[in-house]
C-alpha cells in the first residue's frame, strides 16, 4: 500500500488552486520543496514527511496532531529559533529547519546546548 500524507497536485484538484512558485527549505540538511503560501507543516506533510520531532522522555516521533496551533506537537527549529509551531508558520524560501529532540535535563551531557539556543 502506498502510504502517508501528500499534497494533492493542482491539476487533479477540483478546487483548481492557482499555480504557485515553489519554496525550497532544508530539513536536517536534506532538501524539501513545497509551494509558496504553505505552512512548514504543509510543506513537510505535502512531501510525505510525517514526523520531525522526538519527545524528551521516550524519544517517540511526533509531527502534526491538532493542526491549528493548540497542541505544540509539531514544534521545530526554524533558522535557529526553537519551538516554532510548524502548522502556524508559513515556509519561506531557504528556511533552515532542524528537528528537535530535547533531552531531559538529567540526561544532558556536559556542555549540552539544545538546538537554536543562543
Amino acid at each position, binding site marked *: *500500500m*502506498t*502510504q*502517508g*500524507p*501528500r*499534497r*494533492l497536485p*493542482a491539476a*487533479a*484538484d*477540483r*478546487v*483548481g*488552486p*492557482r*499555480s*504557485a*512558485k515553489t519554496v525550497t527549505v532544508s530539513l536536517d540538511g536534506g532538501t524539501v520543496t513545497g*509551494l*509558496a*503560501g*504553505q*505552512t512548514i*507543516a*504543509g510543506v513537510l*506533510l*505535502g512531501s510525505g514527511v*510525517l*514526523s520531525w520531532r522526538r*519527545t*524528551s*522522555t*521516550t524519544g*517517540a*516521533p*511526533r*509531527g*502534526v*496532531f*491538532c*493542526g*491549528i*496551533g*493548540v*497542541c*505544540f*506537537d509539531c*514544534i521545530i527549529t526554524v533558522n535557529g*529559533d526553537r*519551538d*516554532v*509551531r510548524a*502548522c*502556524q*508558520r*508559513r515556509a519561506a524560501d531557504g528556511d533552515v529547519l532542524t528537528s528537535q529532540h530535547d533531552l531531559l535535563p538529567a540526561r544532558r551531557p556536559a556542555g549540552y546546548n539544545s538546538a537554536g539556543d543562543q
Partner: protein
Amino acid sequence: MRQVLIVGAGPAGLAAATAARAAGAGVTLLDAADQLGGQYWRHLPAQRAATPEMAAEDSSADESPAGAGLLQHGRRRFQRLRAALEADQQCLIRTSSQVWAIERTGDGRPAVHMLEGPPDGRDRRRSVLTPDALILATGAHDRTLPFPGWDLPGVFSGGAAQALAKGERVAVGHRVVVAGAGPFLLPVAESVSSTGAAVVGVFEASHRTRLAAGWLTRPWKLAWELAGAGAGAKLGELAGYAGNQLRRRIPYRTGMAVVAAHGIDRVEAVTVARVDSNWSPVSGTQRRISADAVCVSHGFTPRLELAIAAGCALNPDRFVQVDADGRTSVPTVFAAGEITGIGGADAALAQGAVAGHCAAGGSVADPAVAAAVRSRARLRGFASRIERAHGIGAGWTDWLVPDTLICRCEDVSYRALGDSAAATAATGLRSVKLSSRAGLGICQGRICGRTVEELLADRGRAAGLAAGLDGASVDNRPIVSPIRMSELAAQVSAQPPGPSPTQSPEAPREEC
C-alpha cells in the same frame, strides 16, 4: 469615538466587527493567523487561491454554485464580510497578532497584551491595547480522547485533517479512518475525501438510539428535519455532507469507536470496536482495519483562557456566561461564538452581530439586530442537541491500557498518572499535575487537561470523595501563548510602562 477591540476573526468576530462598525464604533480586529476567517472559513493563501473563490468575488448570492462550496460553506458571506471590513478606514485589521495576556486595569477596562509578527517568532512587535469594550471570539478546538497509539504520527485531530485540506490541499493519508463523535465528523470526512484520500469509514461512538434522541436515526435525515425546523444554512450544510457521504459510499457506522492505533513510528492500522451506550468497548467486537491515517475528534473544548484572564464568569457547563447583549460578567467584556457554547457558525454569526452592536453602545432591542436576535433564538437549542446526541460517554476509559499516553507533551502514561496519584494519596488536580507532570507541558494542558481532570475525578469518586478536585482549573492560563524572553526584555528596555505620549485619542490606547 467608542473603540471596540475584537479578538478572533472567525464567523463570530467578523460579524461582531461588522455590527460594531454599523453602530458607529471604531473597531480593531485581531487574529493570530495571517488571514481572516478562523477555522471555519480557513482557505488557501492568496498565492494559491482556489478558482471558484476568485470567480465568486463579484456575486451577490450567499451560497456558491454547485462545487464551489467544496472547501468553504457560505464562502460568499465570508467574502462580503471580509471585503467590507478591509475597505473600512475605521476598522483596523491586525492579523498575525497573538494576544498573550489580558490584565484588568483600575478603570475596569481590560489591558490586552499582544505580539505582532510571524508565529512563535523572535522579534515580534509588542503592544498593549486598552479598548472601551472588548469582544472575545476565540472559538474552540477539538477534544480528542486518548487511546492506545494516539501519539503515533498519522493520528490527527479532525480539525487538523480539515485545516490541512482547506488551507494546504494536503491529504493526511491514502486510506483514512474518521472517528469520534459529533456532526463535525461529516465535514472532516468530506474534506479528507476532497483531497483524493479514501475515507474507509466514519465511526461515530454514539448509538442510533441516542442520536435519535438528539437528532434522528439517520444523519442525512436529521439535516432535512432540522432545516424544516428553521435552522437554515447550518442544516443545509449537514444535508450536503450527508448527501456526499452517500454518493461516495463512505460507510457511516454508529456505536463504534477507534480503540487503538497500531504501527511503529507511524500508523499502519487501527482497531475499531462496538461500544455500549456508555462508550465502553464490547469485548469480542474488535476489528483491525488497515489505514495510514486516522482523524479523531470527540467534541470541542472552548478556548477560555483570555475570558478567564479578563475575569469573565463561566457557566456550569464551562462556557463563558453571557447575557442577552452578549455581555459577560465583566461589563466591558463581551463574548460570542463557540466560547459561549458549541453551536456552529450560524449561531456564532448571530451572537457576534448582537455582541458587536451592544459593545458599540447599541441595545439588543434595536431593529438593527432584530434578525440576528431571531436567528440566535432559533439556534439556541443546537448546542444542547449536539451534547445530548454525541456527548462523551464515561465508559471510554475502558479502552485505555496502562501504557496509553495521557499527556502528550510530557509523555505521561495512564499508569504513571495513577501511580503518582496513588503515591501521593492525591486526587487534586494541582498536586497530581506537579507530581506526575501531566498537563505541565508546552500546550499548557489544552489537549489532556480535561481528560486529566476527569480521570482524577473518577479516582476521587472511587475513593469515596465527594469532589476529587481541589478547585484548580486546567482552563486557567495567564500566559496564553509562549513569549520569548528576548521579546519580554525588549519591551521593558524600550519604554517604561504607561500610556504612550503619542497615542491618538481616536484609537485604543497603545504602548509599544
